[in-house]
């Protein structure tokens, strides 16, 4: 009964919201006629000012770098939260049900398709990460692609390799280093007497992989952090399978 009332109240106020939303949207500038000056200005100057042909990443890792630093720490804090919530209590007794044994031989089809796929994914991930300042890509995308590699291994049932790759302390260290070095790059520009997170490295030749100064560097840091973050989250959720211990009731 309470649920029915709640839904009815929602539809009344939701309908009012939708009506006023549409009423106000009709008078917005028509779709596809973007006229704000900022996007145009940045698209015009980013190639000359920062030697980065991907102006989206020039914004993310340079013009708006301070904001991205904040977003990166949201990511860091959220992963920390996942790990804290899913951690084992010290006094919690666990029952060993045995590690997942890989059944051999694996399906030949899975092995012959998954192994080349893994190699390709690693290469593609590094390519996307290193060319973020030139073409679409960058640290965030590369991190997600690279983090999918251990899961590919896991899918083709090689649990032992997954266990080894997501070895806890190393991944944790990479996560912290990736997040920390971003902030350190910002502090380095302060030491050099420039505003926080300004682009203090030589800009190089436009179109070269080693161009655009700190944009490429920050992108790499973020790549490491996102990779480690997704691995840590995956590990936290799959811990029972990986360690073979389930909590005693």
């Amino acid at each position, binding site marked *: 009964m309470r649920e029915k009332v709640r839904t009815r109240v929602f539809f009344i106020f939701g309908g009012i919201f939708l009506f006023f939303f549409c009423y106000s949207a009709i008078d917005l500038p028509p779709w596809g006629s973007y006229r704000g000056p900022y996007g145009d200005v940045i*698209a015009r100057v980013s190639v000359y000012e920062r030697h980065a042909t991907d102006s989206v990443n020039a914004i993310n890792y340079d013009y708006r770098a301070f904001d991205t630093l904040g977003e990166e720490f949201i990511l860091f804090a959220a992963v920390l939260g996942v790990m804290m919530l899913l951690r084992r209590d010290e006094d919690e007794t666990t029952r060993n049900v045995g590690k997942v044994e890989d059944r051999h031989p694996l399906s030949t089809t899975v092995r012959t398709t998954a192994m080349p796929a893994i190699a390709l994914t690693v290469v593609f991930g590094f390519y996307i990460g290193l060319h973020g300042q030139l073409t679409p890509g960058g640290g965030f995308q590369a991190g997600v692609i690279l983090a999918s590699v251990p899961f590919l291994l896991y899918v083709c049932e090689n649990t032992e390799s997954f266990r080894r790759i997501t070895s806890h302390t190393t991944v944790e260290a990479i996560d912290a280093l990736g997040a920390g070095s971003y902030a350190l790059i910002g502090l380095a520009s302060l030491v050099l007497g420039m505003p926080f997170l300004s682009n203090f490295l030589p800009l190089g030749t436009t179109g070269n992989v080693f161009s655009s100064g700190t944009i490429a560097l920050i992108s790499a840091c973020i790549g490491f952090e996102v990779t480690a973050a997704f691995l840590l989250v995956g590990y936290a959720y799959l811990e029972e399978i990986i360690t073979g211990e389930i909590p005693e009731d």
Partner: protein
Amino acid sequence: MPNTLHFLPYFVSGWLFFCGLYGLVSSRHLVHSVMCLAVLQSSTYILLLGVGYRVGGAAPIFADIPPGTVTVDPIVQALMLTDVVVEAVVVALLLAMVVKAHEKSGTVSPDELRTLRG
């Protein structure tokens, strides 16, 4: 009467927001609530990308087009890019909270969650 296409993206974004909100209100399972929140949040993607779109504008990547070409707004795209990854991890955080809520109270129904005691 303006062309329907002129405000269709705004309407889709409002509709997604409405659907997500309805899911949250009527949710009987915490995992369902988390997914509804993800739907609700995706409405912001459509709204912002819709605001920054320009008919005939190229992608703001100047690797193969001359600088000065008319492009869509790169700023909203930069906003979305970070948000997609952050959203994925925030959903993971919320799901971890659901796991803990189930462990502590034995239920995943928002209505039956009565673990907050003064």
